[in-house]
């Protein structure tokens, strides 16, 4: 395999225990050549951040499936800044809000929370891979 791509922390935030997508994301990112650090389901913001600190991650991919993603993601960017993760990329995907809402609105709200990218339901992880390569000039 060619040289390793940067480290990405992945996991499912909050009280959310949907595990299947998380495993799939781990497999695909690893196959693509990224170093993957998986904090798993039911993870707090602090767990994502601590993992990113120790592993020198360049991005955090947060999954939220159960509909409470917005609440769970509030304050994440501020905590990253507090911890010295100034340039870390924050992406979020899954079913990040309850029901079917206009995604443009949803996206705006997540951008204002400090997320670099937010994905509508059903977006495959490949979209994230494409974008991280753009955002990190890989």
């Amino acid at each position, binding site marked *: 395999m060619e040289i390793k791509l940067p480290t990405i922390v992945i996991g499912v935030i909050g*009280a959310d225990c949907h595990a299947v997508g998380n495993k799939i994301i781990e497999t695909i990112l690893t196959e693509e050549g990224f170093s993957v650090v998986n904090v798993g389901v039911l993870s707090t913001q602090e767990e994502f951040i601590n993992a990113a*600190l*120790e*592993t*020198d*991650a360049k991005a955090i991919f947060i999954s939220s499936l*159960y509909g*409470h993603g917005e609440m769970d993601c509030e304050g994440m960017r501020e905590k990253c800044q507090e911890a010295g993760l100034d340039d870390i990329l924050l992406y979020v995907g899954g079913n990040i809000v309850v029901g079917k809402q206009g995604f443009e609105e949803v996206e705006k709200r997540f951008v204002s929370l400090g997320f670099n990218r937010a994905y509508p339901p059903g977006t495959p992880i490949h979209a994230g891979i494409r974008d991280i390569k753009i955002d990190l000039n890989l």
Partner: protein
Amino acid sequence: MENNLLLIDFGSTYTKLTAIDLINEEIIGTAKDITTVESDILEGYEKALSKLKEKIGCIDFGSHLACSSAAGGLKMIAIGLVPELTAEASKRAALGAGARVIKTYSFELSKREIEEIDSMKLDMILLSGGTDGGNKKCILHNAKLLSQIKNKIPIVVAGNKSALDEIEEILFNYPQVVFTENVMPKLNLINVEPVREEIRKLFFERIIEAKGINKTKSFIENIILPTPAAVLEAAKILAMGSENEEGLGSIIIVDIGGATTDIHSIGKGDPTLDSVNLKGLEEPFAKRTVEGDLGMRYSALSLYEAADKKDIKKYLSGVEVLKECEFRHNTIDFVPLSEHDFKVDEGLAKLATHYSMNRHVGRIETLYTPIGMVMNQIGKDTLEFDYMIGTGGVIVHSKNPESILSAGIFSESEPDILKPKNPKFIIDNHYILSAMGLLAQKYPTSALRMMKKYLKNI
């Protein structure tokens, strides 16, 4: 195989000798005298030896094995990056090596902290930070600052492997640096054994000399372990068994001293409850924790301060607890004589057991979320552990040792604290655990069989 062995424990107060008949797997005799570090550590040893000879006559010993916690023990600090991750992993590794961890540092150190470290009279520093391939910045920064300390005490580096080359350059002129495997190579994965190994080697090679214990080297072939590490080694062999002899299963050792209470647990501690989610840094299979504020004499006052009013009432009703604790704090060589003294000591021992167990074992954290309750387990689940073993003067000399150990078992009033529910109790009434840990380094099966013979089931 040799016939007789002499096991020596250079303790903080006493130098204790245990003579072993290896063929019959018997204790021939024991003796002790005051440890003499200021003058020559051999003085106390010789005195104890002549006491031993009075008891058992002149016997030839094949080997002499020793452990030591004299001169303040092995004083260390642990340095990591994130407090809950590499800093905690380093602390656990150092404790398991038998060290006294004076302080744990995290993130990039400041000049102030370096000055503090320099003034601490340490024996060793453990430097970690970053997973393999992970953060390098922090450990490099800390190595740079450490390279400037005046007291060039040995540094064990157990951090991000990708930073080792640079650290080696930074510490090129530093006299004593040892590199070993990362204490947390991957997130939440703990790797304590290589670090423990290096700490113990350094302890033997360098620390002993610094403390004037090398004088014994000529005839004591090895001061192989810090005393607490010897106890942990005994616990390991007792739990896991040796090649030819089965162990007891999962065990916990409660060791109550005057200044600290140590808990050792051997066992994985995976969840036994349904639908809990295991969280946080992995636990070492053989884990030691030390509570510096829970003890029978020097730490009696801090024990009082740490304890809950309702627990004090439960274990020490009708006692003027504060007064008794102050007295013990000020009279560290106090020996109980009256029934009242014993009763108070027993009550304090129960408090020490209760709190040190609560801090050692894992707990269930219940989160109330938008979709209901979620239960996380943090730390070891010891609910189903097989044995609890008591050692230390207050337990060994107590008429009711089981009541002291009982203060450390699971209670419905603290259902989230995962202490053993129904363990069998054992008392180390011959005080042999550290000696057996030493013996196990050479003859594990003999050590195990002797422990089975001499430890008392209650």
